[in-house]
């Protein structure tokens, strides 16, 4: 049976663009200052004035969700860049040189991989006190091993192709072979890894926020809004619903894009690459 392709990709990318536009242009879309409290209008239900209602302090939830998108996307993308950079570098070194370097790097990734990410992130943030840069660092720092494995496998496959040998023969340095010949050809896999890393980072950030260890209020993030909202689920359904829906939509958009990209790269596989803690 022939599969119609690309629905996921287009849907995903348009959602991401839509959300990014909202995040970047949040001052245009947010009709209230997200920090502006209003003692008279707390916990107002959604209506013409407040699209998503107001929170306990009378702040406009719509504006806060839109501002939260900025924080979440920024954290997600920065953490993704970090884990992609570190993961690509280490994965490429391990895959290209093999031997001891490979053993060393792979054992390091194993060690990081066996910690449940959320738990490790919670621990690190708890120990070093929550701050935006730390949240990015911790999420990026726990996310790289998955990328490293992927890139390593890809580089190992590519380095056995003849164009790498041909370049070596012309006298190309290892650096040149890696940077000019191997990595550009692994780009597809790296992009797929990136589209998985962003939603993972957003989810972890929101989780940290929900447990009170993420970016701290009054800076609105989807996670810390949910934390506040969970004490008002009987009073205001909108309080918890909208920030959560925002997380869902964003993460879904990235997952869709990743899925679509994967289908393009490898039409046979429609599922994620197996995450193995040990290489075969």
């Amino acid at each position: 049976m022939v599969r119609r392709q690309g629905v996921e990709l287009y849907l995903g990318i348009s959602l991401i663009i839509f959300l990014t536009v909202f995040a970047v242009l949040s001052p245009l879309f947010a009709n209230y200052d997200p920090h502006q409290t209003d003692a008279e209008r707390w916990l107002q239900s959604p209506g013409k004035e407040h699209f998503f209602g107001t929170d306990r302090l009378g702040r406009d939830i719509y504006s806060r969700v839109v501002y939260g998108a900025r924080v979440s996307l920024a954290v997600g993308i920065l953490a993704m860049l970090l884990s992609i950079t570190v993961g690509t570098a280490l994965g490429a070194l391990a895959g290209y040189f093999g031997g001891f370097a490979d053993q060393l790097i792979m054992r390091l990734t194993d060690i990081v991989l066996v910690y449940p990410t959320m738990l490790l992130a919670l621990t690190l943030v708890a120990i070093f006190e929550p701050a935006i840069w730390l949240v990015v660092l911790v999420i990026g720092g726990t996310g790289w091993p998955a990328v490293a494995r992927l890139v390593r496998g890809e580089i190992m496959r590519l380095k056995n192709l003849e164009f790498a040998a041909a370049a070596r023969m012309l006298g190309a340095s290892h650096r040149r072979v890696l940077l000019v010949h191997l990595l550009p050809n692994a780009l597809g896999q790296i992009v797929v890894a990136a589209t998985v890393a962003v939603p993972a980072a957003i989810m972890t950030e929101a989780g940290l926020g929900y447990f009170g260890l993420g970016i701290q209020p009054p800076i609105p993030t989807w996670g810390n809004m949910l934390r506040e909202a969970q004490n008002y689920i009987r009073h205001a359904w909108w309080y918890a619903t909208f920030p959560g829906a925002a997380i869902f939509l964003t993460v879904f958009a990235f997952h869709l894009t990743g899925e679509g990209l994967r289908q393009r790269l490898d039409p046979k596989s429609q599922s994620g690459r197996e995450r193995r803690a040990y290489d075969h």
Partner: protein
Amino acid sequence: MIRILLNRLWQTVIVLFGVTLITFLIMHSAPGHPLQANPELRLDPTAVERWLELQELDGPLPAQYLSWLSRLFRGDFGMSLIYNRPVLELALERLPATLFLTVPAFLLALGLAISCGTWAALRQGGFGDRLLGLGSLAGLSLPSFWLGIILMMLFSYGYPWLPAAGMRTAEDSSVLDILIHLILPLTMLVVGSFSYYFRYVRYAVLAVLSQDFIKIARARGFTELYIVFRYVLPNASLPIVTVAALSLPLLFTGALVAEYVFSWPGIGRWIISSTLARDYPVIMAVNLSTAALVALSNFLADLLYLLIDPRLRFKA
């Protein structure tokens, strides 16, 4: 085969060693301790000092590490700063509740995933397959804590059918009462893990279906059901078992959130409150043991692979 096995074992030992080292280093980069700073508890300064002496280790860092490691080997995970009791004891008290939540969730999610995944793979590209594929993607995208809140909002408050918290209504609750308490946290856990397993199962089954022996079996006119049970599932079971073993961290994180949202008296909730209170020995013991558990289950998955897969068994 023995050589591969020994190699894996050796890798696992290195990983376990690295886990203890990293855990130790994290613990020692932690500044301060919880009771020092708490002005809202009226602590007697001399008592805190005395108590700190009881907690503290001395000597240079490597010596501390070694003595910590030797205590670990004797099963001594340290004392909780808050409970002033052995961490292991506290964990064991809470373990049954966690198992009671996670084991059924794991089996249910896996069972559902195997049936749905096989079904979807057999109808690759069909409406049901596409729907399930999209649904599982959505399931992966659902923040579990939000799902928990929404479930509570709908089924404990909006339609007050199910309890919002805890494991039982009274000390002498019936099994039914406990099962009713289980429904919401279980649902929350199952949604996430099902989506995760489903995608792997479907992929594994598709990989088997594309093989020649399936085409031959079809050509021989076997019924679809026969082919599925006789050929597809046995061959797809290896990757499925592996993924199931490797999903331990996922299940663990899921339990963490589910227990927190639904006040389930298990290890997860205890970990969250210990983390928030900076109960370092607890945090480290939990990190260490889950990491070790995951490393070991990875090793066991490999072992299983070696034992089951004839290709690997008979190789050389």
